[in-house]
């Protein structure tokens, strides 16, 4: 069970106070109406799901109710950093090769 540092409360708190909200830094397309079905589908459903370092969004639901980001290793479950929404992570993630998938 995780021990999570809330960057807003500036304390470590137990996982039970938090709720995970999926991949971090998912940006809603600025011009949603101009998106193709594929672009919209990518935003809606397709995720990095890495085995290793991952940036994810959590909410301090039982505490300050703020959303914030965590860089966490999805295998060792170690949390490398937590940072506020709008801030940039300090831990660099490995490059992932991603070609443009064809819509077949």
């Amino acid at each position, binding site marked *: 069970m995780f021990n999570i540092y809330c960057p807003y409360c500036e304390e470590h708190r137990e996982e039970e106070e938090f709720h995970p909200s999926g991949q971090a830094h998912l940006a809603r397309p600025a011009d949603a109406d101009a998106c193709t079905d594929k672009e919209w589908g990518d935003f809606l459903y397709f995720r990095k799901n890495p085995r290793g370092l991952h940036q994810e969004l959590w909410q301090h639901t039982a505490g*300050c109710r703020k959303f914030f980001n965590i860089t966490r290793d999805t295998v060792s479950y170690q949390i490398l950093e937590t940072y506020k929404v709008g801030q940039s992570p300090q831990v660099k993630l490995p490059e992932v090769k991603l070609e443009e998938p064809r819509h077949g």
Partner: protein
Amino acid sequence: MEKILVSDQYAPDSLSERAEFGDINVPVVETALQHVNLRQVATRTGSGHGVSFSELPVTGLLVLRARSERAALQSALQTTVNIKLPDTLQSEVSVSSGSHKSVYCIRWVAPDEWMLSCPAQDAFDIETRLRSSLGGNSVAIVNVTGGYSVLQLSGQHANDVLKKSTVYDVHPQNFSVGKVVNTTFAKAQVMLRCVSNDEYELIVRRSFADYVWHWIQVASKEYGLSVSRS
């Protein structure tokens, strides 16, 4: 389909004597635990005093929100109720008058959120004065007086009851007098304040108050629970 549902009761010691009321123009105020009739329970308990419990009368509660205009809120508070926003996270600022302690108390909730408590009858007035003092500033004030029940837990085993109930580190070394945290309380949530050594304030959502009361009864069993009149 045969539908089975149970007629539901509150937690033990439930239905109390009905409050009498005649003239409808005299509103009857009910706290969340009115049905338990704690006053009556208080006269009956005598078994051990490891933990003492009480429900405060309806307390005025205002949620205060401000981001960039925190300073404006600060000064509005100072002019209206002469109180400051807490400087540090998870802390409170109280103002007392006379024999009453904490007539006003502001608790840190989040970087842009505080909870102000005050006498119930003042809540509307304070809200109005704050609003007029703030003018067009982007600050939110919400009267949530009816939304919560304010409970007090004290005694030499009060801290043990908290350890059974919340995941937060309530060891006095970490949770010292004047600290306020929002955290879990069993399967409910609580705004928890360390009022003094072995004395804690629990602000819980009104609809959960009965559950919290029931939980406290079970968790205090081994220490002896006494209910104090409030």
